[in-house]
């Protein structure tokens, strides 16, 4: 008993089961997509990329921008958009601009910008105009913690930007097509 009791109060040993269940719910890495800036497009990045881990890098804001929904059966439903600008203005008026990579992912390190929440966000691209969020972000660091598919009364669906620009960069190390959605 003496050996067990001291550990009952060791949260750092036991861990946070709620956080762990969120991490587990994301599932394993996709085959062929290594950990790094191109992985897990569309997932809530800061579940892992927070001070709680398990990722070693921390993001204050991160997410994925997709091309517009399409009804064409020949086109995939979700394709990441490269080169979209994600503009962020925090509660103190500080501004930061992030740009999506070739799978549509963007991420903001606290070393680059540590916003005072709430923040206002818009997403823009030369041929697609500007999509401005209708509400501020109170404290969530991941777009996908609210912006998940399918759209329902509690979630508006993924972040889309209508663009006619090519959404598939042949030089991209992984496919920007998010399968399974």
């Amino acid at each position, binding site marked *: 008993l003496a050996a067990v009791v001291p550990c009952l109060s060791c949260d750092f040993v036991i861990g946070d089961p709620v956080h762990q269940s969120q991490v587990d719910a994301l599932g394993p890495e996709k085959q062929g997509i290594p950990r790094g800036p191109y992985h897990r497009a569309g997932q809530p990045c800061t579940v892992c990329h927070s001070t709680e881990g398990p990722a070693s890098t921390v993001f204050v804001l991160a997410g994925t921008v997709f091309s517009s929904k399409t009804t064409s059966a020949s086109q995939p439903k979700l394709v990441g958009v490269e080169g979209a600008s994600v503009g962020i203005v925090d509660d103190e008026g500080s501004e930061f601009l992030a740009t999506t990579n070739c799978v549509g992912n963007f991420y903001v390190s606290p070393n680059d910008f540590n916003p005072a*929440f*709430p923040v*206002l966000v818009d997403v823009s691209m030369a041929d697609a105009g500007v999509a401005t969020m*209708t*509400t*501020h*972000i*109170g*404290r*969530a660091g991941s777009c996908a*913690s*609210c912006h998940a598919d399918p*759209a*329902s*009364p*509690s*979630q*508006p*669906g993924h972040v889309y930007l209508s663009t006619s620009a090519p959404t598939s960069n042949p030089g991209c190390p992984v496919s920007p097509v998010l399968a399974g959605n």
Partner: protein
Amino acid sequence: VFLENQCGTLDCHGQIGRPLRLYSVNGLRAPNDAGMVPGSGAETTAELYSNYLATIGVQPEVMDSVVEGKAPPTALLLVTKPMGLERHKGGTRIVLGDPMYRCLTSWLLAPSGQAPFDVQACDAAAALP
């Protein structure tokens, strides 16, 4: 409306399971068969009424005392939490004297005749970014 705009975003009180659950047009929608998702459709009477019940239901007995003029607005978590006087995961959102403070406290004090309801402050609070 200011509570919906300032507190009811999907990552805060516009979240299922959170105390003081707030519905709004651009945030959480009440379960519906009309296909209304965040950002679409008009706010329904049921959503407005649910917001009212959520607001007065955090501390119903204390709320009674406040609107009857027997306790100050600062007796309510509804006031102390966003002011940072109690721990609030969303941080300090209301500052003494700002439009949100004036809107909320005037709404609480008006029933007992201690202050008129400050419509202008509420309009300003709802419009804040």
